[in-house]
């Protein structure tokens, strides 16, 4: 494919290049059959778990609100199937911990009446900014790129800050994953309408869509479509991990640096970042009254028979997705939820698909083990690939030696856990394992200090 067609941008500091491995890029999105039971966790987002509204034994319909957002940073949960709630119990989800979930026995497929199931595209936006925000909140939309931050919070610009530009993340920089790619190809127009809705909610005019140039078809397709949509620009980006990270995307597209976390947010430089899948969900929620209860999930892996992209109801057991793609291949050693750079390993394939599940990646036994850890040879690879200008080797040593004050001075809390350092380390050191632990400990200490 000719990649030199566009002039591609990227961010300047750090980053790595890894193989594409987009095995399922040519597979159209197919709806997955209804499961027999679903398990819908109450906490599928950052923030407080939602509060349950239905009890065991009650019947629910597709799209019915079953748990209500508990507080501002929280999100509604809707039933993805029709049937009966048979129990509410702790279910192992993809984080590796047990969480409270509705277990629903599926009976038929009866949707709530308000949902518009017609296939035609609704273009005109008939709602005010407040109405849009209310609808987005009602639909329980969260960031579908993986961070699962409630979207209505993002669409409400805090006082004293001004939004200048909406950035749409179509980067999909993780190897293997193709769900956003397929969504852009198949529902490009809906995504752009979703972007316009978001623009209206924010009261701004300009949106930039960043897409990595290993998806030239998606770039072309959206570029054609934007002729009818004013204010939306398509920007090809160089393939460079972790470009899908908020900070890197803002740097690549706007050449601005977001101040470090936990205080710095994209809005500090006038940016709002939304994922393409989130925009699609916003379109469906606002124009079609359809709450977020299904999403596109990539199921892939080098040995998998049929790497595919599915439209999946939230709560479907992951095992079912793998079965339809040809079953777990012989000698599978590791199954990931999410991409190989930031994804989490599954303890069991009975875990349900949640709002944050972008992909399932199966690894062969031979690829699923780390190599023996050696002494640090101080090659400085980790320092040069860190996109945030940290020194991973130092942070690891400090966490190991419990020097958390120094680690805090060295900005351990800035780390975005992109894992470039471990990717590049020639001595196979688990830098990020330590840094992540150090970071959580330091953050806890900072919080307890504030409370004093």
């Amino acid at each position, binding site marked *: 494919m000719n990649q030199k067609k566009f002039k591609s941008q990227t961010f300047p500091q750090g980053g790595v290049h890894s193989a594409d491995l987009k095995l399922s890029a040519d597979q159209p999105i197919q709806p997955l059959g209804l499961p027999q039971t679903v398990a819908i966790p109450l906490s599928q987002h950052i923030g407080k778990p939602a509060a349950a509204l239905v009890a065991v034994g009650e019947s629910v319909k597709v799209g019915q609100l079953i748990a209500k957002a508990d507080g501002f940073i929280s999100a509604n949960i809707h039933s993805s199937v029709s049937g009966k709630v048979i129990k509410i119990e702790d279910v192992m989800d993809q984080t590796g911990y047990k969480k409270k979930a509705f277990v629903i026995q599926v009976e038929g497929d009866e949707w709530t009446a308000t949902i518009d199931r017609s296939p035609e595209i609704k273009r005109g936006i008939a709602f005010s900014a407040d109405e849009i925000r209310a609808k987005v909140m009602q639909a329980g939309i969260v960031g579908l790129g993986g961070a699962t931050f409630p979207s209505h919070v993002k669409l409400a610009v805090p006082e004293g800050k001004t939004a200048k530009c909406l950035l749409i993340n179509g980067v999909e920089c993780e190897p293997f994953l193709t769900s956003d790619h397929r969504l852009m190809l198949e529902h490009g127009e809906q995504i752009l309408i979703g972007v316009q809705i978001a623009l209206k909610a924010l009261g701004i005019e300009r949106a930039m869509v960043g897409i990595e140039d290993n998806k030239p078809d998606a770039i072309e397709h959206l570029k054609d479509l934007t002729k009818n949509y004013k204010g939306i620009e398509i920007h090809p980006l160089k393939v460079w991990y972790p470009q899908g990270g908020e900070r890197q995307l803002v740097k690549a597209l706007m050449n601005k640096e977001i101040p470090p976390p936990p205080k710095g947010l994209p809005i500090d430089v006038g940016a709002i970042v939304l994922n393409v899948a989130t925009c699609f969900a916003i379109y469906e929620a606002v124009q079609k009254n359809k709450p977020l209860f299904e999403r596109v999930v990539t199921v892939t892996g080098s040995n998998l028979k049929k790497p595919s992209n599915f439209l999946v109801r939230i709560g479907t057991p992951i095992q079912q997705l793998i079965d339809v793609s040809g079953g777990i291949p012989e000698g599978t050693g590791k199954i990931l939820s999410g991409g190989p750079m930031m994804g989490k*390993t599954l303890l069991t394939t009975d875990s349900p698909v949640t709002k944050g599940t972008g992909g399932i990646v199966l690894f062969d036994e031979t690829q*699923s083990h780390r190599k023996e850890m050696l002494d640090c040879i101080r090659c400085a690879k980790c320092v040069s690939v860190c996109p945030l200008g940290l020194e991973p080797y130092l942070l690891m040593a400090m966490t190991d030696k419990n020097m958390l004050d120094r680690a805090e001075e060295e900005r351990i809390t800035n780390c975005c856990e992109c894992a470039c350092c471990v990717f590049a380390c020639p001595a196979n050191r688990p830098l990020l394992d330590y840094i992540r*632990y150090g970071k959580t400990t330091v953050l806890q200490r900072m919080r307890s200090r504030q409370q004093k």
Partner: protein
Amino acid sequence: MMSPTLIYTILVLCAIGVISAVILFFVAQKFKVVEDPRVDEVEQALPSVNCGGCGFPGCRAFAEACVKAETLDALYCTPGGNECMAEVARILGKAVVEQEARIAVLLCNGTCENRPKTARYDGAKTCAIAASTSSGDTACFYGCLGLADCVTVCPFDAIHMDQLSGLPLVIEEKCTACGKCVTACPKYVLELRKKGPKGRRVYVSCMNKDKGAVARKACNVACIGCNKCVKECPFEAITLENNLAYIHSDKCRLCRKCAPVCPTGAIQETNFPARKPKEESATVTAVNENKDNESEKI
């Protein structure tokens, strides 16, 4: 004849030496720190392992605290024990409360046999990080992770990993109950308990708070919260909370009635003479006893 260079060199060096000595003398006078001589004496009496079990950063700090404090009630050096504290009390002319000797006890018996692995952990080899990664590599969320953080922190070399069981073993003679392992354990499966007469102890060796069926599925020797031991205990020393029984060592009279009724063998008894072979649970306890004896031999 000595050459003049040599003489000058010697003279200059001597002069430098004398001047430095004078300066040092005055500096030493100026910055002299007056310290209670008893601090040194107390420090001498302490085991000087700097374990921090007393809550002070090292033995010196503890000694200073002892000298300053009006009574020794809140101060106790666990590694030194009663003898050491008696000596400290003698030096300072204060009274000291004797404390019963304690020991670190592992509240998990999830050996490789009892608790099958449901996943293989392949990350940094420390419990702290493993505990923050996921719910562990077995179906029991509460049990020992077996990555030996307690062994690393122990200043007395009193904990070793048992290769067969994958669990840490506390060596009774070496453990001083400083409590470092207890704070280091991210799963809270180590507890300081009374050492007991002749080292005899009865305790529930499990921390699993899941419901009985779930706990049993995860581990053969889990406490399933069946309440049998609570009913059996004549001294009300056992309580049940969150599907988990706990034996309060201050109420327990070591009658050992609870152990035979436990359906999973989660109750451990150490250093008791073997029961008569007629009784049902003899095999379980005998095995456990053997293990404990082995650990003492090491």
